[in-house]
């Protein structure tokens, strides 16, 4: 079951990369990048899980010793950073997509081709 979890996660990654490579529509490309982002974030979170572990947060009444069996906090901090990076990129991509639509009148990358190859 554990192997299936990781392989399915990479399956999600492949779906995202497929969208980025094979699709021509700008929105579909953005969607693909978002899916790639999800897949890698999910992989990090899953790699930090340990059986029976709870959230790495103390509630009043607990002592530090009770936290030593909880899940790994470091991947969570990394994923938090990665989510924020994804949000920033989404904002920038959306702005560029709007601007490209204004200039070219289409979302089709195969028609957005004014640069010589």
């Amino acid at each position, binding site marked *: 079951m554990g192997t299936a979890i990781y392989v399915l996660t990479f399956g999600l990654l492949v779906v995202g990369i497929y969208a980025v490579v094979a699709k021509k529509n700008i929105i579909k490309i953005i969607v693909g990048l978002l899916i*790639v982002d999800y897949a890698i974030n999910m992989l990090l979170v899953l790699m930090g899980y340990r059986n029976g572990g709870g959230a790495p947060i103390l509630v009043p009444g607990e002592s530090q010793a009770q936290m030593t069996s909880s899940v790994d906090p470091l*991947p969570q901090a990394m994923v938090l950073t*990665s989510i924020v990076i994804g949000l920033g990129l989404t904002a*920038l991509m959306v702005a560029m997509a709007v601007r490209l639509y204004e200039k070219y009148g289409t979302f089709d990358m195969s028609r*957005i081709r*004014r640069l010589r190859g």
Partner: protein
Amino acid sequence: MTPGRDPAARRAADRWPEKGMQMEAIVPLLVVLPLGAAFAIVVLASLPTRREPGGSVPLGQRAALPLAAIIVAANLAISVRLLGGDVGPMFIGGWSPGKTLGIQMICDGLSKLMAVTINLVALASIIFAKAYMRRFTKVWLFSSLFLLMTAAMNAVVLAGDLFNLFVFLEVAAIASYALVAFGCEAEELEAAFKYLVLGTVGSAFILLGVAILYSLTGQLNMAMVASLLPKAGSSAVLLAAAALIAGLALKAAMVPFHAWLPDAHPSAPAPISAMLSGVLIKASGVYALARVVFNVFGPTGAYATVLMVLGAVSMVVGVFLAVGQWDFKRLLAYHSISQMGYVVLALGAAAAVLARGGERAVAGLCLFGGLFHLFNHAAFKSLLFLSSGSIEQQTGTRQLKEMGGLSRRMPVTSFCCRVGALSIAGVPPFNGFFSKLIIIIGLTLAGYPLLAALAVLVALMTLLSFIKVQRYALEGPPQGSIAAVTEAPASMGIALALLAIVCIAGGLAMGPLREHLFAPAGEILLNGRFALGTGVLP
């Protein structure tokens, strides 16, 4: 507030012992100064101002570029100052080094070399930008983004932590996406979007590699990961290495992953083209690749082969694509791919020598050639991009066929352009000749005479390509509208002259430069997995 433990007591427990202000203390300034200035520029420019007569730009916005130039100059001074000193490992937040709780900053020979290169090119570009950016709107946005990109590149070369490296790679990359699109014309947006999509995929691969390495070792600190990797599983290490090398090769525009570069670099404003080709692909591509392959994974046969194949293919394909170009900036962009191929090929040859336990001197020679060429390429490629920008500004065209006779109309620019062209083509007293010569000798000694011959061939093709530039742009009869052009403004000339002096001096002062700049940097790579310390385990 109830009394808790005071800071001094915390430090006693796990924090780094008090050492007073030493060299270590000024290293973070390389990142903090430009970041703070970038934030301050945005505040200054957005403050409400009285409407000035004649619609001129408010003072807060006009101050942006000079402020950025001062900060970059200060950064250059700091990085040159660091060259002399011996900087130990630093743990940010004062956490003790034994358990690597905090993020480590490395300031060894390699980082110092990169920091000097980055800040030197940044200074020339920002001086050049003063006159060049007049045509653009909202120059304060440009200055802020420029500083953020510089800060992020400085942080990348100082990072001693894999995730920290990734974060600042992303900062530099996002700033460069925005800067490529700064002109807001259709072509620029198109190039920027393609660059953004490929760059994001590359970053995703880098994060994937970092994630797998973390799951294998439980560490993010490079030294610790390097010391624990041999004990971890082998097939997953290969997957992590493949992901990291693919992602970083994409950032370095090595050939199977180069599609974005010829669009993105020419589309940016000239100072940004100089920064992207001059230092960004090196800091976030080649440097990070070398750091990860040599110092984290350790130079073994498989990685060496991958580096050599990437380098050789980029070197050859880049130059063949460049020869047919008539757009000046596009031609330069293709040459960037080719010249980066030289650097990666030399690094790969050194790794191969180290992997089979060959002579350290030969590997050292290869590394010296590669790093020297990296530095030289930063100087001459940014010089060429800046001069193409000043030609474009004065003549209004980037097409070589529409130029001609510029050596009489724009003597300073033409002279500097010629210095850059002779350097990249590898003509004797200039720096490019020496670094290519050392790479070729190193390849021969390392037992790859065929690759050395290939490098000579590519050097000849490069020469050919730049003879074309000379012939059509600088010599010959002026084309119709070109006859009336005048010399570029003085600030542009100063920036060009600065880089031209570096190109000439780099060739002449090779000995001292090697001793103070390249030998310590090469030493770091020579030491492989053990360069970052032994990774103290509890």
